[in-house]
């Protein structure tokens, strides 16, 4: 083995150590705050109590209906924004004029907090899942459509010309040249879209909803059941971390540069 991969593996190892130490330090602060500095247990439950509640949630399977509601909303929202974002992004990318018109427009809308429109979505779609799906789809549409426009805009014209000179049809040009060329940038957009879809689905559940993990957490907070609420937060963090890891892994597989 050459020395370079070993050096980078070593650096990777040490950055992992620092990351683990960071999480451990936060846990330590938590223990100190509850057991030594006596912060009110109503504001900050003891870590051991939270752990006991966490085990209870997992053992009883109480989380399953709420998790299914949230995952279904997430899947539906992401499916809609993925389909619309990639289709519309591709169509816009075909024309310089449309890119000039829509790219700044979408970028502008993307920069405003669309979650402000949640009350409107609830009025239109009701308190249940449809409003969460619609909002999640709206918010995650923008990073996907913007990166799709960007990805198809970056395709090297020389490659398309070469494919044409060898007789590529329109469909072949798309499948073998335009799409693979744009794929890494589109995948980056999908990862961002997935993250904001997850944020907006859970976020809107905590504001106004009938079911879902966000709904459960707010419900527990309103009943002052703080240890269980924290346990649910830990659960949601774990689920979100897992989903993001899966999506990042998928993104890395599509890279060719």
């Amino acid at each position: 083995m050459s020395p370079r991969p070993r050096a980078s593996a070593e650096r990777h190892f040490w950055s992992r150590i620092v990351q683990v130490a960071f999480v451990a330090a936060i846990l330590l602060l938590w223990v100190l705050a509850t057991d030594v500095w006596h912060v009110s247990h109503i504001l900050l439950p003891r870590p051991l109590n939270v752990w006991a509640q966490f085990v209870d949630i997992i053992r009883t399977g109480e989380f399953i209906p709420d998790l299914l509601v949230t995952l279904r909303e997430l899947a539906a929202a992401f499916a809609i924004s993925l389909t619309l974002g990639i289709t519309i992004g591709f169509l816009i990318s075909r024309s310089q004029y449309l890119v000039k018109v829509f790219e700044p427009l979408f970028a502008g809308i993307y920069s405003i907090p669309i979650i402000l429109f949640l009350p409107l979505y609830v009025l239109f779609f009701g308190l249940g899942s449809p409003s969460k799906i619609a909002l999640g789809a709206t918010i995650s549409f923008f990073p996907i459509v913007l990166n799709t426009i960007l990805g198809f805009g970056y395709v090297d014209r020389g490659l398309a010309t070469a494919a044409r000179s060898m007789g590529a049809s329109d469909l072949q040009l798309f499948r073998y040249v335009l799409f693979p060329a744009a794929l890494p940038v589109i995948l980056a957009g999908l990862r961002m879209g997935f993250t904001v879809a997850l944020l907006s689905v859970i976020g809107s559940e905590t504001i106004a909803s009938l079911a879902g993990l966000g709904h459960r957490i707010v419900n527990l907070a309103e009943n002052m059941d703080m240890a269980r609420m924290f346990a649910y937060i830990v659960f949601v963090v774990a689920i979100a971390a897992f989903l993001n890891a899966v999506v990042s892994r998928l993104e890395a597989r599509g890279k060719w540069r």
Partner: protein
Amino acid sequence: MPSADAAISVRDVSHSFGQAGDAQYVQALLNSNLDVARGELLCLIGPSGCGKSTLLNIMGGLVTATTGSVSVGGKRVNGPMPRDLAFVFQESALFPWNTVFENIVLGMTFQGVPKAEREDRARRALAAVGLDQFAGHYPGQLSGGMRQRAALARALSLETDILLMDEPFGALDEQTRMVLGEDLSVLLSRSKKTIVFVTHSLGEAVFLADRVAVFSARPGSIKQIIAVDEPHPRKPSFMTAPKFHALRDQLYDLLHDEIRRAMAESGQTRRRYDDVEADAAAAVSGGEGA
């Protein structure tokens, strides 16, 4: 009328970019006529911006001439003709997400070669350019010279009668370029391909070509055609022969005034210049600097 034994006939081709009167309007080519004989290697040489690459793209159907016509094998060119001719570009134009082998197979997929034949032909093409060991490499893992070999293999695998090469060695260093030129000469002596080869380099043109077409400055047209008359494969010793130097000097004389005209028109040397332009620039600064 195009002559019967011409592989490519160019008749009264003019080409301009943009609309007349626009600031960007450029008359690139003016009334060019040319017959490329079957089995010959014809070099197009001329000052930067003279339209030699444009003419190559018109021959290959990638650009439609504003006026005039081109026919290949008696058929009028209206668009890409993948079964009749293959391109090799200056930047290799290999797909970076595919391996060398996949790139070659994909070219044949585009051209419509039956699936069963593709892999066999790809292997033969790679062997012909000496890249058999690198079939599984990605273009990004190869040197510039190897990428151009791979691009040449892709063009060869298409088994067209005609190859159009647009400064294929232009981005390479001189040593790599000389070796690839020798290899190309050997390869050609074995095949019966017709090749049109655009180059900036006087030496490359004399070394490779059966005939060299010299362009005038923009708007480009063919000023003169010089025959080299030396059998392929050409050996490195040809480069030191008196005949080589006489032809190179003759080309330089023809180009000299055109290069000055092209430079005066463009004001500054905007593009990368190779030996031809570098010589001319040295002559200009040497003559006028005093």
